[in-house]
């Protein structure tokens, strides 16, 4: 199968079930809301080392936020509800509570399959040292924590849902410039969609990994089959004209969200055709044994 002349490999992306929540950060300006959100979602690329995967989902206009100020919606994903609660609370406390003028709200309603809600202000409130006050507005509890610029307003908790993490595809190109340009186009297309985030730097990963390592302590190591410099040394998956491979990883709230994002991303990556240097689209999987969600590329694009 080819898309715009770019070969689509007959393989599948393998993704995992995760636990997710959405929070909304508002501030006095879009810039400060974004600052808090970028801080909160920094160092949140992979659960392997960060405990949580997070990203900015969208910028929100004042009309879209609970308190009528500019805002940003953030999605956070973790392997368990406990992990999600732990890292969300830590990041809310260190990155949002600290950021001038911000307020923090729950960004989703609990669905029928939702697990226990994750705390936001429930424990952060103790920062108020007894001066914190709660307000029950329209059936939802908020905490008002006195801080030096006034009050940090923070929802008591946020809903938790089952979600999908690790949807991906690989862009195989004749050079790193071509691979990067295709990935940037893909990231731009995918970031326009709701319910998904791309947790890696700029949405792109260069260090795709395989499971296991020759070193006992490491659970994952470099995906040698796709490293151009290891061609001729290991069993490479790269044709002779491929000089660079980049990967895009997407986490989404539902299977359909991830599927839609992959379709949009691959479409944008292939838009320039083979002349752009993009030669092939592949995907990362672990033989299908580890993840509950499989995305066969040809079926996703069909």
């Amino acid at each position, binding site marked *: 199968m080819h898309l715009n002349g770019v070969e689509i490999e007959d393989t599948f992306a393998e993704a995992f079930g995760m636990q997710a929540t959405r929070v909304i950060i508002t501030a006095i300006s879009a810039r400060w809301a974004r600052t808090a959100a970028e801080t909160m979602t920094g160092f949140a690329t992979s659960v392997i080392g960060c405990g949580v995967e997070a990203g900015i989902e969208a910028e929100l206009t004042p009309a879209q936020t609970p308190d009528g100020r500019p805002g940003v919606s953030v999605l956070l994903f973790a392997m368990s509800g406990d992990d999600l609660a732990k890292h969300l609370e830590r990041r809310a406390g260190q990155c949002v509570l600290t950021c001038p003028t911000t307020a923090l709200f729950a960004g989703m309603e609990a669905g029928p399959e939702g697990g226990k809600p994750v705390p936001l202000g429930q424990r952060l409130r103790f920062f108020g040292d007894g001066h914190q006050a709660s307000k029950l507005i329209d059936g939802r509890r908020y905490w008002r924590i006195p801080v030096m610029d*006034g009050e940090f307003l923070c929802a008591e908790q946020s809903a938790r849902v089952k979600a999908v993490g690790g949807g991906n595809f690989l862009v195989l190109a004749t050079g790193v410039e071509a691979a990067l340009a295709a990935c940037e186009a893909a990231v731009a297309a995918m970031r326009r969609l709701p319910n998904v985030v791309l947790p890696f730097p700029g949405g792109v990963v260069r260090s795709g990994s395989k499971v296991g390592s020759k070193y006992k302590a490491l659970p994952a190591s470099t995906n040698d089959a796709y490293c151009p410099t290891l061609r001729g040394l290991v069993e490479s998956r790269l044709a002779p004209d491929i000089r660079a491979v980049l990967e895009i990883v997407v986490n989404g709230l539902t299977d359909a969200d991830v599927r839609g994002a992959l379709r949009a991303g691959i479409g944008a990556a292939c838009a320039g055709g083979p002349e752009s240097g993009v030669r092939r689209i592949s995907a990362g999987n672990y033989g299908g044994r580890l993840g509950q969600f499989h995305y066969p590329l040809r079926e996703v694009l069909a």
Partner: protein
Amino acid sequence: MSALTLELRRPLPGRVDLSGLRPDRLAGLGAAAIERLALPCGRTPVALGELFRVRPGDPADLRILGGDPRLDRVAAGLDGGRVLVEGEVGWYAGEGLRGGVLDIRGGSGPFTGSAMAGGEIHVRGDAGERLGAPRAGERRGMAGGVLHVYGNAGARAGERMRRGLLLVDGDAGEYCAARLIAGTVAVLGRAGALTGTGMRRGTLLLGTAAEGLPPTFNATGAWRPGFLELLIPVLARYQPAWTERLGGDPLQRWVGDLATDGRGEIFAPD
């Protein structure tokens, strides 16, 4: 199914207690059975049929036509459904309400919504003293729900309130929000003398510049907290004037009552 309607036939012989007329207790009763219900009236119960003309219908949609200031405990303990009164009611209307809606198209007497814990009460006229307040000897006032008075409220509105939202579109009498434990009280008009006395926690919003607060309240200066942007739209759902009255500018804020816990707050426009 149309509403179950009770139309007052004649002036009441005395104070009549209507607390038994709740959807859960009226369910399954025919018109004749409803007419036979005994209503406490002083020392001698009266048959409901002697006082009211009954038109059968859905007991979860109860209409009482023709009010009387001696109709006490209307919809007390209501836990769902809707009770509408075309006229005035007496004491303890909606006492201990837990759910549903009590809509009084007239004034109401003292202790309206006393210790209610959920649901909504609307009083389209004026309400008597001790709105939402605990009965004598009780410790807690309103504990949830929405209590909205379109006219004025008497003294001690919201006393000992613990949770919920109390709105007065007109003026409130003296000792408004006295001994408030928590919750939100909003008075669009003037609040009387010694408002907030003994307030522990909770929020009192005044739509009119405050005057005569107890000396045990301290001003904290003009400020506009973020939660107001969430709360004002809720107030405006009941009384749209709140949006303009508390709009855009910082509000004066006082904390108190410092004679007690002192974590209560009063907001008012400059």
